């Protein structure tokens, strides 16, 4: 555990909202996610781990994916630290609507609120 720095909280420090949370995702043969689980070093198509970082808390959503609504890809900030992601907008078993993305640089999966 990282000890508290004792530094004063900066008034002008921004905290990002909707920070991506690492998750473990099982994908099918087409590379589309079929199940989301807490990131404990599981999974892919054939139980190959894809996300290795343990999330700080429980993932916001997990379960089987009942519907894939949309898939898109972004390539940004290529001039600095490239960001390359494949987003998948999904509905989970139970009706939860979340956005998953795969970091194509590292292969890790994350979940975010839409």
């Amino acid at each position, binding site marked *: 555990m990282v000890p508290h720095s004792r530094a004063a909280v900066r008034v*002008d*420090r*921004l905290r990002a*909202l*909707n920070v*991506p949370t690492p998750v473990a995702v099982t994908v099918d043969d087409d590379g589309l996610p079929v199940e989301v689980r807490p990131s404990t070093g599981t999974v892919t198509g054939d139980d190959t781990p894809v996300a290795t970082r343990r999330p700080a808390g429980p993932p916001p959503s997990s379960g089987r994916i009942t519907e894939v609504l949309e898939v898109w890809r*972004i390539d*940004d900030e290529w001039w600095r630290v490239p960001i390359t992601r494949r987003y998948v907008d999904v509905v989970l078993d139970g009706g939860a609507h979340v*956005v998953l993305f795969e970091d194509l640089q590292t292969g890790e999966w994350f979940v*975010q609120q839409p």
Partner: protein
Amino acid sequence: MRQHRWQSTRQHAGPVNRRSGPPAYGADEHSHPTGRASRTLVSDHAACLWIPLFPLRCEEWRRPELVGLPAALLAPTDTRRAWLVSPVARRMGVQPGMTVSQAIGLCPPLTLIEPDPVHYDETFTQFLLALERVSPVIEPAELGRVFVGVDGLERLYGTPEQQIQVIAHAISGKGAEGNDAVLRLGWARGKFLSWIAAARAKPGAPLVIHAEHSAAFLARQPVAALPVGSDTHRRLQQLGLTTLADVARLPEPALVSQFGGEGRRAWRLAKGLEVEQVTGRGRPEPIVAGLDFPMPAADRLMLAHAVDRLVERALSHPRRTGWRVQTARLRARLEHGISWTTDVTLKDPSADRKRIAGPLKTRLELAPPTGAVERLAVEFVAFAPGTGELQLFARDADSAARAGRRHALHAAAREIKTRFQHSRLFHVVEVQPWSRIPERRYALIDFEP
């Protein structure tokens, strides 16, 4: 500037409550939230300069054809009601607070004027800047009313009557053609007495109350002159007290038992025992509002948006209250340790976000930073005196309600901070709402009252 000369040479000058001599200095701890006290200037003797119906007069100076016509200025937040009414319109039955239809019904030739608060504030600031050349001790009370500390001015300008002439001369022509016809001036010891003197003075005929006449002058004044709440006024009248002499004749404990601290103050004012000094202020130290970007930002739109937010934050700093910004600086720390800065001096000092942020954003557009910005900061480095924040709107009930809600919110935030050691409340701010990357769109920032 005379003010700077006083500050540098007379920082520890003598006792605060002397009768005359150069302005004395005291520490104004309330004006400095960081606890570092700034120096203040005080004066026992005061000249009160008052221009009744100041916003309406500003309109007449701008549009001379309105002079002598029945006119009404509409309320800034409810343009269906009259706010200030010219004497001619008042004689025809129009009262402040009436609806437009009522007013027109009573006075068909009534001219209705949309309010222009920024113009009134700017005109008043010009007055204050002109008065600063006469005395370093200036205390604006409200739009159109200001106290000038006159201790020590007799050596420069002579008798009180001559001092008054200098003051009147200083503001003549400051965006106010023919202001002698509406300007009222009073000179006396203490703000209360000088204010009454100004209120009793006729336009163009200043009233000077020397110490030996002050008791008799005070005794003749109605109790309505006392700066106490409306409830206290009503009760004083119910008790049959009509003049300050009536109040002064009562024993102090009687008033204290009836009205508490307000009664004590009223009694002391009526007896002439309370002398409220004019308090000027040294110009505030620079105010800085900064922002660290989670990721270096190069997008102009985002930077412009950040400038808006930073100007807004800097304007809300308590040290800025009562001051208008004359010079603003935009500083950026770029990637790889490079920095960038630009200064803007406003022709008309302003406390309006758009008027300050506009030139800064123009500079940002014309000569942008040469790299992505890691930290952006807005700094107010020079100030001009202005009125207290939103004084113009303070009379409006909606504004009062809004101020009450803000006050309650701030009190709650302070309590939470006291309990948890640091703020647990946050603002959601837009960072890059258009970003394709969701976590870049919004952010939280500490809510600090």
